[in-house]
């Protein structure tokens, strides 16, 4: 395993390797040994420098970057680990999805924390700049949150497209497109597994974000290569009935 990051609560570690913006999305499963674990109530081990996670600042690492090589290595390990026990492609994707889910929940809290604690918000370009952001109450603000701030937090750029299903039968389906998902950059899928898309992990992250905000949803990742973008991936979000019902109520109440 790679050396742990300096501390877990930070998302990025500075990077000297690649000039391109980098992701921190993999820091969750990669850390078997965080420096401090105050949750173990009985045998609390305070680090030698007397600094617990509560003494560290959540914003210190916000502009730092993580080594792309180490990320690629860790993600590869995750996929291998997941694959070891699965029965098929679907199962593998489900596992990747499950690994992403808790990250989504955490990112949500971190995202809002960072945008409230400083005025130059990571969320800024979405809508409001200085006032604390609102929790998304409707589907559209939620999707903008994912498409913009979340993607920027993970990949330092927005996602490439946001679409609503045109079919009247599936008004609950939305699509977010990433032309070149970072997680798939170093992955070459064998021919017999060509249905597999390892961005299922990111789908899990999205699902965690949706669920955390109270939008029951199922999210899956699908390959949709084009000439220009061979690894183009579409994330399909399907919201549950309860969400759609609530949408109607909130629309009537005039809540945006």
């Amino acid at each position, binding site marked *: 395993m790679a050396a742990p990051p300096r501390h*877990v609560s930070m998302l990025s570690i500075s990077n000297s390797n690649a000039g391109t913006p980098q992701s921190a999305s993999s820091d969750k499963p990669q850390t078997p040994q*965080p420096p401090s*674990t105050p949750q173990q*109530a009985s045998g609390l081990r305070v680090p030698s420098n007397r600094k617990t996670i509560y003494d560290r600042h959540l914003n210190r690492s916000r502009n730092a970057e993580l080594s792309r090589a180490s990320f690629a290595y860790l993600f590869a390990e995750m996929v291998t680990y997941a694959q070891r026990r699965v029965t098929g492609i679907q199962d593998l994707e489900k596992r990747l999805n499950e690994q992403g889910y808790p990250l989504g929940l*955490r990112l*949500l*809290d971190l995202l*809002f924390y960072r945008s409230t604690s400083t005025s130059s918000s990571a969320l800024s370009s979405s809508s409001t700049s200085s006032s604390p952001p609102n929790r998304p109450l409707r589907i559209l603000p939620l999707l903008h949150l994912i498409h913009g701030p979340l993607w920027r937090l993970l990949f330092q750029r927005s996602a490439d497209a946001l679409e609503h299903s045109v079919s009247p039968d599936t008004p609950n389906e939305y699509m977010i497109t990433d032309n070149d998902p970072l997680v798939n950059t170093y992955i070459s899928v064998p021919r017999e597994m060509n249905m597999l898309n390892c961005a299922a992990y990111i789908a899990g992250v999205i699902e965690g974000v949706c669920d*955390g905000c109270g939008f029951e949803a199922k999210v899956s990742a699908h390959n949709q290569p084009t000439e220009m973008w061979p690894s183009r991936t579409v994330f399909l979000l399907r919201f549950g009935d309860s969400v759609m019902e609530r949408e109607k109520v909130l629309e009537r109440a005039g809540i945006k």
Partner: protein
Amino acid sequence: MSYYFTILSPTDTPIFNIAFGTSKGGGDGIARFRFPDTAQYMNQFIIHSSLDILEEAQWTNGGMYLKHIDTYPPASAYISAFLTPSGARFLLLHQPPQLPSSGSSSALGASSLLGSSGSTTRASSSSVAANPTSPQTEEAVRQFMSEVYESFVKTAMSPFYKQGMEIRSPVFRSKITAAGKKWL
């Protein structure tokens, strides 16, 4: 003013709670609720019942700090709420001290203790303790909630913490106590 602070998971499970009293205006930081000691379950009942209001406010107000959302008039218990984006609920029950005229003997003791610190008590108590719905109180509670939120996010970032798990860290507790002392 006495406070009972609870963090509830998205599934209503309490993951942290603490009771404390005001430290402003000579308060000793010890909670003195109006219920007898045998009836401390009332705090939980009141908080639990305020979830009805919270669930409604949650979808009409997009802010994280929802301010004072509910009151339980028989005990003058006021509930303020803060909602994290991931669905954890911070609920603060605050209860002004019982007026000496109608107070029981224990409340009398508390108020005389407050009274001993003289005029400064009154000056500062008008800011937070006296009026649970004043803008000053709202602001103080908001500051308190924000500090709790920071500690909560730090907790949530730990890979050994799963959502919905009880927070048992003594460091977390001391952080909350400090925030209470600072703002409330």
